[in-house]
């Protein structure tokens, strides 16, 4: 069968199960009821603090085939996944299903745990580094499930992804299991992506290197859901935790694109009092935010809220009064962490509150505009941020599809050529985000508007922006680079790409041998 973006998806994928094909961004109805998580009980005098992770494994007990979940606020500084899997391996556990909101280069030991059979399933929203390559080359027998940030929260709340044990990397924790991300040597700020796991997992273990007196405040993950607290020497490396791309790009082409993106926003009619905005933490996105801030100052506009991966740049905009609130699921630098800890207008929210399409309203629905990147985009405006042009998994939606679906105007910023490769193709290799949710492509060679948004194209033209037909931009790219040969990957399915509503939008096939 075909998903609504024209991708062939099988009726059943071995290791995943029966497939519901993507039918449109808002076409698939929600299930009737949420999954009911475990009732729990603790008696007066119970001590939650355990001596080691191994003891937690014995107490729960962690059995072969269980699903263990993790969150990625530590990004490339995460120590917890590797610690837990090392314990699992030493205790001889097999066939574990690992559900982690994102995977980074630091998680390379996962590959060996897959090879040795400790891990046999993987469920994530974004992968960078060697694990993506290994998966693409077929190291895992079952396909990796690639979700969106909102889709992961949805899957947990719906009980489609059932977590046996959630390991919460806890920058600061008290003995009764209250957790915050704003203190401690591995402070990371918001713990939004860990919240659904803590709420729904059968067992919850807070892993910390900073145990403080009861009661900790303010609480991000509450004692009411946390069963055990394990103190270890070190849960993460602060250098990796706040390493995100948090400086404005210096690349002149990137700046040119950012300036154009800001001009698109200025001309869109959306940039008025109460404007809301999401951007990634990439250098070009930050530059666009910076140009936009100047326009807002010039026009005397203040926005309602900014969201996304929070950096010092957005904090600075909050402090200057350009936005009234920051809504925060994840922080990228220490200024953002500090702001979350001290500024009451800087709000910490869960992944579900941010982006779950199946609740009574997530934040992305309130976005006026979002600026996102693309590895490839096609003439139907479908975007690939999952695989490289060599077929190797090197990303994933994260919040890409969620924000695109919610925002009134979704802007993709990208160089028309990446290396020699045109970013604009007839068909992207993997559809991550459907074209119906993408409105504008901004490149250094001009701006293309989704034909579904003719009124927007008209506004941009009237403002003097270099609006070009998407086919014309593609032809220009091919004139510069030559027409690329389209590689064909027809190996077995090594990954499935779930849209935020749980339908399958595309699959990833094995690349090379």
């Amino acid at each position, binding site marked *: 069968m075909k998903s609504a973006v024209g991708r062939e998806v099988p009726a059943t994928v071995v290791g995943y199960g029966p497939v519901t094909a993507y039918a449109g961004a808002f076409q698939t109805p929600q299930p009737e009821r949420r999954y009911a998580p475990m009732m729990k009980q603790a008696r007066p005098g119970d001590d939650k603090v355990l001596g080691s992770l191994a003891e937690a494994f014995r107490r729960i007990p962690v059995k072969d085939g269980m699903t263990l979940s993790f969150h990625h606020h530590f990004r490339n500084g995460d120590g917890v996944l590797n610690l837990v899997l090392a314990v699992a391996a030493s205790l001889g556990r097999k066939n574990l299903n690992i559900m982690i909101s994102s995977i980074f280069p630091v998680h390379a030991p996962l590959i060996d745990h897959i090879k040795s059979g400790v891990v046999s399933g993987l469920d994530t929203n974004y992968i960078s580094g060697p694990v993506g390559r290994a998966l693409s080359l077929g190291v895992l027998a079952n396909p990796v499930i690639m979700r969106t940030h909102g889709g992961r929260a949805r899957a947990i709340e719906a009980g489609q992804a059932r977590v046996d044990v959630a390991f919460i990397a806890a920058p600061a924790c008290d003995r009764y299991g209250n957790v915050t991300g704003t203190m401690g040597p591995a402070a990371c700020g918001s713990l939004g992506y860990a919240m659904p796991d803590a709420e729904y997992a059968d067992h919850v273990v807070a892993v910390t290197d900073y145990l403080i007196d009861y009661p900790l405040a303010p609480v991000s993950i509450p004692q009411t859901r946390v069963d055990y607290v394990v103190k270890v020497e070190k849960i993460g490396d602060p250098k990796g935790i706040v390493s995100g791309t948090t400086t404005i790009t210096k690349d*002149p*082409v990137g*700046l*040119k694109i950012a*300036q154009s993106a*800001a*001009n698109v926003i*200025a*001309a869109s009619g959306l940039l008025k009092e109460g404007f809301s905005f999401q951007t990634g933490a990439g250098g070009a996105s930050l530059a666009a935010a910076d*140009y936009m801030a*100047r*326009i807002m100052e*010039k026009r005397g506009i203040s926005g309602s809220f900014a969201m996304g991966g929070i950096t010092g740049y957005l904090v600075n905009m909050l402090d200057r009064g350009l936005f009234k609130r920051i809504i925060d699921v994840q922080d990228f630098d220490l200024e953002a962490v500090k702001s979350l800890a001290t500024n009451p207008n800087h709000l910490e929210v869960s992944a579900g509150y941010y982006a779950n399409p199946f609740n009574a309203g997530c934040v992305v629905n309130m976005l006026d505009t979002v600026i996102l990147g693309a590895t490839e985009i096609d003439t139907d405006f479908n975007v690939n941020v999952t695989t490289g042009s060599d077929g190797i998994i090197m990303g994933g939606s994260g919040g890409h599809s969620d924000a695109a679906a919610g925002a009134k105007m979704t802007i993709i910023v990208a160089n028309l050529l990446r290396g020699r490769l045109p970013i604009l193709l007839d068909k992207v290799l993997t559809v991550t985000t459907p074209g119906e949710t993408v409105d504008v492509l901004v490149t*250094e*060679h001009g701006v293309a508007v989704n034909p579904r948004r003719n009124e927007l194209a008209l506004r941009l033209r*009237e*403002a*003097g*922006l270099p609006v070009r037909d998407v086919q014309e931009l593609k032809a220009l790219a091919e*004139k*510069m680079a030559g027409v690329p040969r389209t590689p064909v990957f027809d190996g077995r399915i090594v990954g499935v790409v779930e849209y935020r509503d749980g339908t399958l939008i595309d699959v990833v096939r094995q690349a090379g041998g």
Partner: protein
Amino acid sequence: MLEVLRSMLFVPGNNPAMLQNAGVFGADAVILDLEDAVAPREKDAARFLVAEALRQVDFKTSARVVRINTLDTGGAEDLRRVVSCAPAAVLVPKVQSASDILAVAGLLETLEQPGQAPVQIIALIETPRGLAEAYSIATVHPRVIALAFGAEDYTAAIGAKRTKEGLEIISARGVLINSAAAAGVAAIDTPFTDINDEAGLRADVALARQLGYKGKLAIHPRQVDLIHEVMNPSVEEIRWAQRVLAVLRQAEQEGAGAVSLDGKMIDAPIELRARHVLKLAENIPAGGAEQ
């Protein structure tokens, strides 16, 4: 292509990534640089690269200019490689005298292909001697269409310290603009070298404009938009210029002699300035980008 030169953007001649993107910044001209931006042992490779870039890369609305080396340091070889690729002009560095121009013009004549549009010359004045000879440099050959000022070498040569405020080059800027005006060629101001100082660049371009310069060299793509913004005539100036020409047209139709606008006589200099304002205005995109 070389009628309006508000900005001329230097691009290193041995850097493919920068060469192929040079046209996206909207500079009135790009200067593919074979001189200072290229290490001595890479000059040969850069010549091939600039030549192929001239053949294949679309520089969009930017005129194509090549900065060659001085003739005694490889400039002649530069010309042999690039002239047949039809640059609009060559920027000749460290011009000291009219004879330097004649030598370049002579080579151009022998190297141009039949039917090729003549390659123009922009003389980069960056020595006290060159400045003293500026008028004869500008008038010695019809290919010379502009004088450009390079203040870094010049300041070193006169023994002054180069500052952002530029008091040390104020008289040189004056001499250069006067020489160019007397010769009837364009004058292009020296680049502002601190690429991170936006306010400094703005002040520097404003000063150049006040002195009579219509164009400026740019050493970073980020400088282009700001240079245009300051060099562009304002909406008020454009309206004024349109009214001047309308009044003149009407007077011509009616066969009237002296005409005036807002109580001021429109004489030849006023007409000239109005025409120049409108020429510049043609290059501002409709609506314009914000900022």
